[in-house]
C-alpha cells in the first residue's frame, strides 16, 4: 500500500479505563474512501477505539494516525466527524437550532443543513424540540450534525441502533453514497446483518481485533455463508488458538 493511502492506522493501541485494560495492543488499518464496519458485542471496546481515533480518549500506549496526523490534532477537527453512541445534541432546543449551531461551528450553510436533515429523514421536523423526540430520532439528529460539512473521515458509533428497518437501509445507502464520493467511514455495530453492507469488516472481541477482511474473504475463510455464523467461527478458532479459555481474569 502506498504511504499515506490509509485514512487511519492504529498501531499496538493499549487503553485502560477504570483500572481495567480494555484495548490490548490493537493494530488495524482503514483505507481511504472505504466503508468499514467495526463489529463486535457490546462492551468489546468498539466505542473506546472510536474515542481514541477521534482523539478524546486518553491512551496508555500505541499510535493512532488519522489522515496522516496524530489522532486529536487540531487540524483534524474539521476533517473528522464523530457521532457518539448516545445522541450528543441539545435536548432543550429544536432540531433546526441544533443543526444551525453545529453548522456554524464547522462552517456549513443552509443548503447543507437541508441536505443533512433529509438524509436522516427528519425533513419538515426542524421546529420540534429534540427532547420530545424518540431515542431513534434523537440519534438521527446527532447523525445529521456530523453530515453537515462532509468530513473526510466519519466515525459513527452504532448509528442505526433502534431504527426502523426501512430507515436503516436508507441510511446504509446514504453511507455507501458518501463512501462512493470519497468519504472514509468507520461504522460500529453489534448487528451482524449490517456487516454485508461494508467493504471491509473489523471483528472485535474483548479488546482484541480478531480479524480484518472483506465480507467475502470472511465467508471464504470460514466456509460460512451467514456472516453471523462466520463471526462465531472466527471467535471459536481464536479461542482454540489461545488454548484454554482466558476470559476469566
Amino acid at each position, binding site marked *: 500500500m502506498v504511504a499515506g493511502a490509509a485514512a487511519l492506522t492504529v498501531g499496538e493501541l493499549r487503553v485502560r479505563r477504570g483500572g481495567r485494560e480494555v484495548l490490548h495492543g490493537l493494530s488495524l488499518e482503514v483505507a481511504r474512501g472505504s466503508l468499514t464496519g467495526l463489529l463486535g458485542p457490546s462492551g468489546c471496546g468498539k466505542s473506546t477505539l472510536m474515542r481514541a481515533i477521534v482523539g*478524546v480518549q*486518553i491512551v496508555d500506549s500505541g499510535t493512532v494516525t488519522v489522515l496522516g496526523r496524530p489522532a486529536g490534532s487540531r487540524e483534524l477537527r474539521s476533517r473528522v466527524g464523530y457521532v457518539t453512541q448516545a445522541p*450528543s445534541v*441539545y435536548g432543550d*432546543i429544536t432540531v433546526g437550532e441544533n443543526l444551525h*449551531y453545529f453548522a456554524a*461551528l464547522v462552517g456549513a450553510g443552509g443548503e447543507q443543513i437541508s441536505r443533512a436533515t433529509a438524509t436522516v429523514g427528519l425533513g419538515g421536523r426542524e421546529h420540534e424540540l429534540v427532547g420530545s423526540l424518540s431515542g431513534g430520532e434523537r440519534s438521527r439528529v446527532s447523525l445529521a450534525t456530523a453530515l453537515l460539512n462532509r468530513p473526510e473521515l466519519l466515525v459513527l458509533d452504532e448509528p442505526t441502533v433502534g431504527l426502523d428497518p426501512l430507515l436503516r437501509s436508507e441510511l446504509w445507502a446514504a453511507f455507501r453514497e458518501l463512501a462512493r464520493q470519497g468519504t472514509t467511514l468507520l461504522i460500529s455495530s453489534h448487528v451482524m446483518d449490517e456487516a454485508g453492507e461494508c467493504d471491509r469488516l473489523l471483528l472485535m472481541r474483548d479488546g482484541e481485533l480478531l480479524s480484518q477482511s472483506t465480507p467475502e474473504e470472511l465467508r471464504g475463510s470460514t466456509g460460512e455463508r451467514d456472516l453471523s455464523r462466520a463471526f462465531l467461527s472466527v471467535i471459536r478458532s481464536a479461542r482454540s488458538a489461545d488454548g484454554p479459555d482466558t476470559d476469566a481474569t
Partner: protein
Amino acid sequence: MSSRATFATARRVLWQIRHDPRTVVLLLVVPTGLLVLLYFIFEGRPGTFQRIGAPLCGLFPFIVMFMVTSIAMLRERTTGTLERLMTLPLGKADILLGYGIAFGLLAAVQATIVCTVGFAVLGLHAAHGAWLVGLLAIGNALLGMALGLFASAFARTEFQAVQFMPALIFPQLLLCGLFVPRDQMAGWLHAISWLMPLTYAYEALAHATAPAPLGAATAAEVLAIAGFTLAALGLGALTLRRRTA
C-alpha cells in the same frame, strides 16, 4: 478561537434559555420578589433596608449565574455534548466566552429589572448612580458564571451541583459584610473574608451605594473582581479536557 464559534455558542445558549420560559421568569422575577420581601421585613427601618438592599441588587446576578452555569456546564459534561464539541473546530475560549456573552446579557436584563424596582420604586439610594450598581451587577454575574463553570468540574450529578450553592456561596454571603460588618467579626473570620471573591463584589457595591466619594479602594475592588473572574475562567478552561479517561 473564532468570533463565529463564540457567537454561535452564545446564540445556542440563549436558544436553550428561550425554550425554558419558566426559568426565564424565575431568573427575572425572583430577585425582585426577594427585594420586595426585604422591603416589608425592614419596614420602618429604612436605614437597614438601604444598607442590605442596595448592595444586594448587584449581588443577585452573582448568585443566580453561579447556579445556572454550574448546572448548564454539568449538563454539557454529562450528556456528551462537551465531548462532541471538543472534537469540533472550536476552542475552549469560544465555549467560555459564548457562555459569558449569553449569561452576561441575561444578567444585564436581570440587573436592570431589580435595580429599577429597588432604586425607582422601593426608595433605595445609589449615591453614585443606579447604572454603576447595574454595571457591577453584570461584572458580578460574570464572576458567578466563572466560578460556577469551575465548580461544575467537581460535580458528578446535578444533586451535587445544587449543593455547591450552600457549600460555596452561603459562606461568602455570610462573611462578605452584608449582614455583619467585617471589622466586627472575629479576626480569623475577617482574614478568611479577604480570600473570598464575593467580599470584593460586596465592598464595591457598598461603596457605589454610599455617599462617600469613590476612591482607589473601589478601583482595587473592581480589579479584584476582574482578577477572580479571569482566574476562575482559567481554572475552568483547565477542566475542559479534550481527552478524558
